[in-house]
């Protein structure tokens, strides 16, 4: 078991390493670097100025060496001032050169770098935005999981019944409605003055400080709805399979009431598969989060990702990639472990 987890963690590290290398490569191509320079010194500058700015700010070296700097296995860059002293450097602060500044300052030293767009530490920004997205995700899961399980169990326990057909169609409909469709329809119906219901807020900016029923319902519902259908269908399939299994048939023949049959005998086994699906859904929810956070102007992880990506904010993007790799692989790991834990028939040797 420990070896299994250790192996998985090693894979995770390797994946993160490869992925950041790819991101680093893509964000450090010449046109992208030019974009960084222009956001920093203004849009009306010449190519020579861009060149000199890039050299002065540590973008001049070979790409792999700079990746090493970010990682913390190469000494941070420095650039000389006119008088020969150090003017600036990766490991020096904003101000003048300080004696005793470390030579290495990368991820390994716990320094995630600085965001060029937000002018702040990457670690601070990511921590802040992850906390916000965590709040959103928590509520999404609170709404989505029980909802999906109830729908799935209800339609799976009597396969082919009218309830089943109705609920299945609803689940299919929800998986066919992407967030950018349901989100805009929700805003139009429940938040705009045009329709006049105005039950909820069409903007979740105030939810960043204080989430209330009015300002958080729509974003949560928009994400939950899209994921709900899929989980419900998996639950239904799993439930339907369990309901036709041998031991349920036996229990039914013994005269166990339908309610007891479902609640006591079928449910536990029927929920193993959905558990895996739910964990694997989390990275997908992250995807929906990007759309919803942009739509509802909620400045969490997804919004940060869009800002970083559209401004080619290299170090922030690297940080974002590392976090998303960890999320994806960690949920996979938990789903595998949970599967093993819940299903007594499987053991990892």
């Amino acid at each position, binding site marked *: 078991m420990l070896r299994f987890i250790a192996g998985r963690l090693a894979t995770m590290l390797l994946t993160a390493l490869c992925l950041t290398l790819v991101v680093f490569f893509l964000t450090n191509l010449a046109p992208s670097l030019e974009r960084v320079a222009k956001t920093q010194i203004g*849009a009306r500058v010449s190519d020579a100025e861009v060149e000199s700015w890039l050299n002065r700010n540590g973008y001049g070296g070979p790409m792999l060496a700079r990746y090493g700097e970010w990682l913390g296995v190469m000494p941070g860059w420095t650039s000389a001032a006119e008088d020969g002293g150090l003017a600036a450097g990766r490991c020096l602060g904003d101000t003048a050169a300080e004696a005793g500044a470390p030579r290495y300052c990368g991820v390994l030293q716990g320094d995630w770098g600085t965001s060029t767009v937000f002018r702040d530490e990457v670690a601070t920004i990511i921590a802040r935005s992850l906390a916000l997205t965590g709040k959103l995700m928590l509520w999404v899961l609170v709404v989505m999981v029980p909802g999906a399980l109830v729908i799935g169990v209800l339609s799976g326990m009597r396969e082919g019944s009218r309830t089943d057909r109705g609920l299945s169609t609803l689940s299919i409909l929800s998986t066919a409605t992407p967030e950018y469709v349901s989100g805009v329809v929700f805003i139009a119906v429940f*938040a705009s003055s045009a329709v006049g219901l105005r039950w909820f807020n069409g*903007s979740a900016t105030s939810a960043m400080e204080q989430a209330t029923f009015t300002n958080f319902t729509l974003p949560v519902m928009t994400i939950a709805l899209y994921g709900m259908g899929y989980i419900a269908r998996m639950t239904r399939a799993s439930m339907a399979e369990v309901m036709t299994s041998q031991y349920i048939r036996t229990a039914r023949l013994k005269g166990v009431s339908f309610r007891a049959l479902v609640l006591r005998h079928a449910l536990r086994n029927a929920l193993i598969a959905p558990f895996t699906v739910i964990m694997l859904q989390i990275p997908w929810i992250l995807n929906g989060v990007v759309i919803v956070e942009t739509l509802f102007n909620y*400045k969490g992880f997804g919004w940060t990702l869009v800002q970083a990506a559209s401004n*080619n904010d290299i170090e922030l993007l690297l940080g974002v990639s590392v976090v998303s790799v960890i999320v994806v692989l960690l949920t996979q790991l938990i789903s595998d472990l949970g599967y093993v834990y819940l299903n007594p028939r499987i053991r990892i040797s």
Partner: protein
Amino acid sequence: MTQTKTPGSSVHPAALMYAEEHRSGKLSRREFLTRSTALGVSSAAAWGLIGLQQPARAQDEPVEGGTLRMQMQTKALKDPRLSDWSQIANFYRGWLDYLVEYQNDGSIRGMLLESWEANEDATEFTLTVRQGVTWNSGDPFTAEDVARNITRWCDSTVEGNSMAGRMGTLVDRETGQAREGAVEVTGDHTVVLHLQDPDVAVVANMTDYPAAIVHSSYETGDPSEDPIGTGPYLPAENQVGVRQVLERNADHTWWGTKVYGGPYLDRIEYIDYGTDPAATLAAAESGEIDATYETTGDFVEIFDSIGWIPSEVVTAATITVRLNQNSAPYDRADVRRAVQMAVDNAVVLELGYNDRGEVAANHHVCPIHPEYADIGPAEHDPAGALALMEEAGEADHTFELISLDDAWQAATCDAVAAQMRDAGLNVERAVLPGSTFWNDWLTYPFSATEWNMRPLGVQVLALAYRSGEAWNETAYANPDFDAALARAMSVADAEARSEIMAEVEQILRDDGVVVQPFWRSLYRHHTEAVHDMEQHPTFEHHHYRWWMS
């Protein structure tokens, strides 16, 4: 409201001339106010010259205190003279003051300057610095501070310093710095500017948003890091892209309180909702904001319909669909002319800006500018455009029009593209998100630039179309135009001036520099609780006037 008097009773002779012209109907009231106040006549005196009382602003007694939340893009701060967005300036306006301030009625009033005077041919300006002003660090504000700031502005060797262009008549072309002796401190509170050539716009240029006055300890970079200024507020929070907060500086007595009154608000929060107006609307309907930065296009009606109070100002703000003359085929005047002829500006106004503005005539001088000369509407002739394009041999060229994804700018460009297609030209469109657009926009051969209003028409022309200017993204370089513009910058009587301006406008239009379809009216909406927060023609936020009930 008090209005300080110009020291000395002499009124600039040109102002008297303008008053005469106004009375004889050659000059509109707005024109008169802008031109005479730019020469140092106080607004009250200017109103007096034409025999009117300055209208007292009807208002309730302002209430102290309160927090105002306003939608605005919150951008990373820059050295004021390098600022390229009004939004940047509107945040540091909290603690940095300006020398002069442009008013909604078209006049210019003194802030850190008490008054100013020009000599007869507008080559020498005497600036009188306001007494009793202190920095929030406790240092007194003196003429030295003014001189140092003006010298800073003149440094054209700093990358992206747009003030250098505005102060062109003070700059030594050789060194790129302020000319020796151009800025002279003649007393504790007087500064004299010696101009190389006549320039009526020099004080008007000081109203522009990069002209914030910084302390002697400030070198460059983010001014909020060590916010020493003369203004009444201090930055409390600066999260780029999320929000920026100003808080009343309790330890500092603002000079303006006894001069103009205010400030009233305790706290001003700028919240960023990106560029999508739909997000702002959602925020307004959710009660997350009290005011918008700007309401555009269809959203004006929508905000009206949800019961927000509109504030409209007619301006010379505009969009130019410009052709960069450094890249083929736009290096040929025929091609550019053909593009202009293909476009019906009135249709562009309808589709691009919902008819909320005035049709313009492709020469970037607005009827509300004091020096406007009417040279007739722009020519619209689709058939002629195609013929001209065929003659130039570019009828098969595929033009790619690139614009920002901002709603009305994209709509305007779409409308231009559609008109060109209707004329038989091949047009492709690209709409880019802000981050991508702004990083490359200078290199786009065929694109759109949004221009804010400047009090004088010549100010924009000098910034945007003079050869080699930092903001000239048309790459237009025509010595005739430069010479004519230089003449227009000096004082002259109405007839001579409108003749020169007619010439300037005609050159610009005949060279097909830009398609400039319309003048925008600017709108802002706010809730009923917000008072004295009119939209400003150049998007300036005068925090000290705002109050909430």
